[in-house]
Each structure stands twice: as C-alpha cells, then as structure tokens.
C-alpha cells in the first residue's frame, strides 16, 4: 500500500467536515501537515522531549489508599494529569498543535476556552514557542474562572470577550472559528478537545493518547495486571479518549465516560448529551456529526453544569461511535455529586481536583463500593482545582 495521504474522516457515521468552504482547504492542509509531522522522528522527538522536560511527563499514577478505604471496595488509582504543567491534560494537545502550527509557518494561534484550562495551556505553549495567541472566552465563563483569565493574560495571550449566545464554550468556539475564517492564511485554530471537523478529533486524540500509554505501563508495574475499569469525565471528551484509546482493544476493561448532569437530568439543566433522549440526538455542531443537545427544530440547546469545562452541547464523535459499539459506556454525575467528590478527594487524598475531574471521581466512588477489593479502577484526574475554589466555596455556602 502507498503511504497514507489522508486519514479516515469519520468514526462509523460520526465526524466529518461540516464547515464553510473557506475552511475546507485549511483542514486539508492541517491534515497533510499532521500526517507528515506524525510520521517524522524529528517532530515526535521534539514533542516527546518537551513533554518530559517541560510538561513533567510521565505524570504519576497514584494509589488513592484512603479514598479506597473510605469507599470500601475496588482499589482506586488516579492518573495525575493535574500534575502536568499548567494544571491539566490540555497541555499535551496544546503543545502538539503549537509545534504543528510553527511547522506550518502559522505564527498566530486562536483558541477557545470554557473552564480556561485549554486557554491557559494554549497561552503556555504559545509563550514557550513564541507564537501570538488569542483566546476566546464567554463572559459567563470569565466570571466563574477569573484566575485563569489572569493567567492567560500573564502568559501574553489576548483574551477576547465573547458576549454572543449563551456566553460559554459553544459561543467561544463560534467566535474562534469566525476569527479563523477571516485569518486562515496566517492563523492556526488550536481546538482544545477531540471534536470539531476532521482532522481535529483524530489529531487531538493522538496527542492525548500519551495518557493511556503511560497508564498501561504504570498499572502493570504497580499491580501486575490491567484494571477492571477506567473512568474519565466527558465534556468534549479529550481526556477520556486520551486514556481510553490505549485500552480499546483490551475488551475486558470497562471504559466509563461521565457527563455532567448539572441540576439533574429531569431538571433539563445539564450537559449530558447521551442521557436525555428529549434533547440529545445526532446532529451537526462546529463541523462535526455527533450527539448534540438540541431542540426539536435543530437549534442548539443551552447546557448547564457547575463545571465550565463540561458545558458543551456536543460530544467528540469517537465517543458517540464507542457508545454505539458498546465499547465504552456513558453515565453522569450531578453538580452535587461532583462537589461532594471534590471535597472527598481534598480530605481523603490531599488533592484538589478540577470540578470536571470530580465528576469522574464521583462515579468511581459509586462503583468502587460495589466491586471486590481485588479489582482496580483508574480515574483520569484530568486537572487540578485551584481555578474552581470560588465556585466550590460559593456552592458550599449556599448548600
């Protein structure tokens, strides 16, 4: 067979490229650049070197001994993406794409951010590589993630306020795409999750797959066996696909994604695309055919969660495919469950998790109690929670 020139653009029926014509050539250029970089040892070598010497990889896999004792069941391990430089797994992808942008000769980066973690990661990578950085962020998110706004600005990024629509992640993506459309010649859109038009879902997954590869070696070293269950929160789904990807062929391992149930599924105020048949069904948002929260007329629904990083109306297309194949399963945790898990991890393990990651911890505590002490659960602790202190303290005061 000839060398690959294009990657599969879909996961089953999901994915694709539903974008304005002006971007189609840019996506083709990005795909070509990614394929050539992926297969080139110099590019991979530079990325690996930075992941080790700058990001601090491999991140540890920690046995959560007191949390395990507290739950009374399966041993719970935490994959510590919260310890990656800039505080979350987002840096793995941001650094990969920033290197790619530099290689493509694009000196200007635009990005969207919800919780601010991807914005911080992008601003970090741009500072490191000397790229101009513009981050779009909704006003609602700027208010609840103020420390991350300050961080991005300190790192030299220009934070653009998004006042359109619901003023959250979806609208920040709209504005980032509009910017990209207007400046496509010299600008790379550094999309932060495994969603959007092809090749983003594949490329972002590949940059995040380092999480799962490290996890395999670490759990084999610690336990001499693979885990029963791997759990990750799912907004767009990049930390989840990053840890799942390595284990998809290990069919005995249960892969569990946790969506944000907000105030509860029946309240209608949530971001659980797979959990609510009234609003979650296949559709197109931001260039991608996947599960989308929408009304009967195809208008995109508003999403709610205490966690800004999980507030997105669509889910990465590979998750939709894994769910269809019943290779991964998707459940949800409410705001209250996430807040409870947040406190639990602080008190039992001395770790302040991101509210996003706390959703995965909540699911782990539920499952661990039902499993035998011989079994192992790995939670992808995708980020740290410093950014969430105001939100959490506010919520606890109200409770």
């Amino acid at each position, binding site marked *: 067979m000839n060398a690959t020139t294009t990657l599969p653009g879909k996961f089953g029926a999901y994915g694709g490229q*539903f974008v304005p*014509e002006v971007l189609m050539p840019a996506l083709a250029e990005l795909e070509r650049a990614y394929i050539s970089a992926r297969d080139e040892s110099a590019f991979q070598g530079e990325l690996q070197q930075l992941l080790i010497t700058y990001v601090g990889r491999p991140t540890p896999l920690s046995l959560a001994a007191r949390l395990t004792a507290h739950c009374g069941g399966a041993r719970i391990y935490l994959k510590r993406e919260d310890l990656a430089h800039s505080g979350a797994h987002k840096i793995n992808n941001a650094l990969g794409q920033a290197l790619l942008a530099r290689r493509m000769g694009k000196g200007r980066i635009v990005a969207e951010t919800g919780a601010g973690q991807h914005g911080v990661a992008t601003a970090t990578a741009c500072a490191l590589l000397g790229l101009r950085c513009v981050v779009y962020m909704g006003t609602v998110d700027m208010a609840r993630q103020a420390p991350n706004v300050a961080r991005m600005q300190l790192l030299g990024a220009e934070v653009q306020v998004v006042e359109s629509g619901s003023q959250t992640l979806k609208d920040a993506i709209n504005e980032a795409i*509009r910017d990209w*459309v*207007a400046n496509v*010649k010299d600008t790379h859109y550094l999309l932060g999750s495994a969603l959007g038009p092809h090749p983003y879902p594949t490329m972002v997954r590949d940059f995040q797959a380092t999480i799962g590869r490290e996890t395999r070696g670490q759990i084999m070293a610690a336990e001499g066996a693979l885990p029963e269950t791997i759990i990750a929160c799912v907004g767009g789904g990049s930390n989840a696909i990053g840890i799942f990807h390595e284990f998809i062929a290990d069919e005995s391992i249960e892969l569990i994604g946790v969506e944000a149930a907000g105030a509860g599924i029946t309240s209608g105020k949530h971001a659980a695309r797979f959990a609510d048949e009234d609003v979650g069904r296949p*559709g197109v948002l*931001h260039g991608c055919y996947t599960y989308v929260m929408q009304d009967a007329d*195809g208008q995109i629904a508003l999403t709610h969660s205490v966690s800004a990083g999980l507030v997105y109306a669509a889910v990465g297309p590979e998750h939709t495919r894994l769910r269809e194949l019943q290779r991964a399963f998707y459940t949800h945790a409410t705001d209250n469950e996430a807040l409870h898990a947040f406190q639990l991890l602080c008190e039992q393990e001395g770790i302040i998790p991101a509210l996003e990651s706390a959703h995965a911890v909540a699911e782990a505590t539920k499952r661990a109690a039902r499993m035998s002490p011989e079994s192992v659960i790995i939670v992808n602790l995708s980020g740290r929670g410093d950014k969430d202190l105001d939100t959490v303290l506010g919520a606890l005061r109200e409770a």
Partner: protein
Amino acid sequence: MTDPVDLVSGAFTKGRPAFMPYFTLGYPDYERSLQIVQACAAAGADLMELGIPFSDPLADGPTIQHSTQVALANGMTVARCLTAVAELRARGVAIPLMLMGYYNPILAHGEARIAREAAAAGANGFIIPDLPPEEASTLEEHCQRGGLALAYLLAPTSTEARIKLVAQKASGFVYLVSLTGVTGARSELPSALSDFVARARRHVSHPLAVGFGISTLEQAQQVGGLADGVIVGSKLISVAGEANDPVKACGAFARQMVAALKDTDPH
C-alpha cells in the same frame, strides 16, 4: 413545465447582473419579513435568499447573527419558514426563492422531508454554508427528486480541485464568497476578487453570484461588472433594523440596487 432548477438559472438572464438579496425570515417579525421579501421582489430583485435562523451561525457576522436571534426569539422555526415560502407564493411573489440556512436545523427536520415540503411550498432550492459537497450526497439526492437546486459555495481559498468539484456538482448557480471572513459590510471589496471570479469562471459553467461584504451601490456595480449576480444580505438587514418603516426602506434600497445594476454592463 419549466424545471425549477432552470428557473433559478433564469434569474441570471435579464441582460444585467442579477440582484439577489438575502433576508432572515422572522426578522424583525414574521409578517414584516414576508412584506420585505415582497417589497424586494416588487422592486425588481431577481432571486431571494430566505434565511432559516440558526442559534449558532458561525459564518455570519454580528448583523445577521442579531437578526437570527431576533427571529428565533419570535418563534421562527423551519416549519414556519416553509409556511412563509408558501405564503409568499400565495401573495404572488414569482421570483426564485432559495432557502439559506445551516445544516443542523435541516437535518433535524429531515432531509427527505424538507426537500419534499420545500418543493411543495414553492421554494426553488437551498444554500447551506456549512454543507460542503463531500457531505451533501443525501440532500443532493432529495433535492434532485424534488426538482430543487442545491447551490454550493466557493471561497477565495478554494483550490482548483475544489473549484472543479463544485463545478461538476453545481445546480442553479455557484455562490462565490468574496472574502475570507464572515458576512457583514466592509468598506472595500477585496482586491483579489476579479482573479477569484476568473478562476471560478474557468471551470464553472453555471452563473456565478458573489456575496459577503457588499453593501454600497458602487460595490454592487463593481461586483456586477465581474459576476452574474450580486448578493446583499447584512446591509439589507441593517436597512430594516434602522428604519421606522422597514418594509418601505428595504423596498427603496432594493430599487436603488436594481437601478444601479441596470447601469452595469454584464461581464
């Protein structure tokens, strides 16, 4: 009986560049959006693009974004857009009517169903800015069955291979996006526009209509000197938004545009 797709192409045979306004259905309200379309048709518009509002119009600038938000707040739906087309036909609007909107509401309505209902209502086709030909085979089939045009877009960034692809799949006309950017008024036309139109012309046998960023009579005349049709959207929305009597103001604006294009030699 004339093929409805030929009716669309027929809009470009008036001996002058066609004037093709875009207007968002449901803005500033349902009834006045219909009256504005009627006023434009009466003023001599050759074809109209009727906007189906969408919550997340990522190819649009602030003016059209605002109009779609107002339309949605007014309760506009895909079904009401189809009713609007039927109503316009009942009121005697005879020019080709193309429905323009983003893909998700069309998908949610059902591709077979919307093609069937649009044809029954008297629409002539669709323009879907986020549906490139690679993803459009299902809708294309339903449009062909319903005798509807599915107009594709080209942009200044389009490669020769993509221009050929669109040339091969074109029906009705080809929509040339004048610039790399979102919709909305600009002070000047992009300098590379004539090269872009010429590049498209080398491969596309269908009429070429140019849109995005055209707001003044002078710009319309310049574009009319290059292309077969001139699309004006955001400016018409602004005219409606700023006037005490939006229907009258839009009609007057359309008359000026048509008159300006009469003085333009076809390319």
